[in-house]
């Protein structure tokens, strides 16, 4: 009796409708997360089986390696610099596309293409573009005399890092530009007219009308960009595989390397847990600002 009633209520129906999706997510997303957390506290053999409880040994193993700390620092530098550049260039493009000019729609469509393209395949195209002898990038740089002798991009640690960084930035620019453009177009025109009446300079209009009204979009987009950049596995894996050595690895590629090349699942799981905590924190910040910005639901 009680049960029959439950299915007829709205929450009963909702439960019924949400159940399949929830079970699916529990099995293939939440259970793996729990399993990884478990792995991080266990000694794990090369097949990925739990052998014995080892407390914080996996974490201590990573913390004792100077390389790990280098990679933590590199991941932070990677994320901070890429997000800053994407935000800057994205904003410039958005401001340009917000000007009414002939061909603006075409320009907008063309700007989207790097985002529309598949990241691993883009990275393969870039790998060829970066080729020192036959690639068109260095040839162009030489011809335009921007670089007398441009670096062999993917062969040495520092240029390789910048080469990776640029491809990540390149992939991320269109989204930033489009979000900012949508944000700009949501600003009521009257505000600019009012500012003009008050005799505001273009810079003052930008500083006191555009920026404040764009701030919620800026926050959401930046947080998203932080998450994506921090998680960018494809670019680094395809371009340099984290090499030479581990000189271009960031946390995400390093985890993969530890797990599937070195077959050290325990330490890899420990790093995955650390990454999980970092991502969870940023995700919560993102969700908060999403809802604060008037997001749905």
């Amino acid at each position, binding site marked *: 009796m009680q049960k029959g009633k439950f299915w007829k209520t709205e929450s009963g129906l909702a439960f019924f*409708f*949400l159940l399949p999706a929830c079970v699916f997510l529990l099995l293939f997303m939440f259970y793996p997360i729990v399993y990884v957390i478990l792995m991080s506290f266990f000694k794990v053999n090369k097949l990925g089986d739990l052998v014995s409880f080892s407390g914080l040994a996996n974490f201590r193993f990573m913390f004792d390696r100077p390389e790990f700390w280098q990679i933590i620092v590199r991941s932070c530098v990677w994320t901070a610099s890429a997000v800053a550049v994407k935000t800057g260039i994205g904003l410039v493009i958005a401001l340009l596309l917000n000007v009414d000019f002939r061909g603006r729609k075409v320009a907008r469509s063309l700007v989207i293409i790097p985002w529309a393209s598949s990241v691993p395949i883009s990275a393969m195209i870039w790998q060829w573009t970066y080729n020192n002898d036959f690639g068109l990038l260095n040839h162009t740089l030489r011809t335009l005399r921007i670089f007398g002798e441009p670096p062999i991009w993917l062969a040495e640690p520092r240029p390789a890092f910048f080469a990776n960084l640029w491809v990540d930035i390149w992939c991320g620019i269109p989204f930033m530009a489009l979000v900012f453009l*949508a944000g700009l177009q949501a600003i009521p025109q009257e505000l600019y007219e009012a500012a003009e009446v008050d005799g505001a300079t273009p810079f003052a209009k930008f500083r006191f009308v555009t920026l404040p009204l764009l701030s919620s*979009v800026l926050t959401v987009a930046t947080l998203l960009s932080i998450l994506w950049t921090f*998680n960018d596995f494809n670019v680094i894996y395809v371009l340099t595989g984290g090499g030479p050595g581990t000189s271009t690895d960031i946390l*995400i590629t390093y985890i993969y390397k530890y797990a599937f090349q070195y077959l050290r699942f325990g330490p890899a799981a420990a790093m995955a847990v650390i990454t999980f905590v970092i991502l969870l924190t940023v995700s919560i910040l993102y969700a908060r600002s999403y809802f604060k910005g008037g997001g749905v639901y």
Partner: protein
Amino acid sequence: MPGATSKEGGCTEMRRRNLYFVYPLIVFILLVLLFPFFVMVSTALKPLEEVYATPPHWIPRTIRWANFSDIWVKYPMGAYFKNSFIVALGATLVNMAFCIPAAYAVARLRFRSKSFIMYLILVVQMFSPIIVVISLFKIIARLGLLNTLLSLILTNSVFTLTFSIWLLGGYFRNVPKEIEEAALIDGCTRLQAIVRVLLPVAMPGVVTTIIYTFITAWNEFMFALTFIQSMDKRPLTLGLYNFIGRWTVQWQYLMAAALLALLPVVILFFFIERELVHGLAGGAVKG
């Protein structure tokens, strides 16, 4: 939203002055952004001698269309395309089967802790697959699904599910409730009302969600890299990646294959880019 600034031009003189720096800047930015695609097309059309010419030519002196037919013979491109298509289609079907009822629930029904669930969905959507790929590998192995396309279908549909629910739920919410209620009064069951009334009206949203899932699964690389070993099971991204791991990379073939792999999804992407931006950035950009 459309043409918000086009009405601004009170002062045409100033606008014309603006254009003097807008055009050069936009052209410069587009040249930089599209440079690798130019490289791709140029290389895809070059004969082998020209691919390895120093200094390299920007534009091929002789155009070799045969690159586009050679790749089907010299590499298992047909299998790669087929696998990518099976994975993307399979992931889309599985995804939609779970997504439509869930999106309906969060959009239409009132239930306890709904806001918490929505919050959770938004947070989970940002998790990197790398966090779980270690344990997922174990799980997939235990299920006996290593080196099967089914493993990719499952993982891709799981990792697109939360955003799909989010996207489709938004569409369902925008369909007036009265349309469905009218159908219910006319004697439809709830299920009939959803299938015959709500879904057709929300069709643009359904299509958007389908395209989103399809593209994401089509472009996926890391799961394929981890779960697939044999050549004939590789999807395009992994297949193309394995062009590189050889002694001599035939770049003209890789670029021709890349062009063919990119074309369908880039075109599809244009149908959904606005919805993606709005879905990801929320109310702040709803004009």
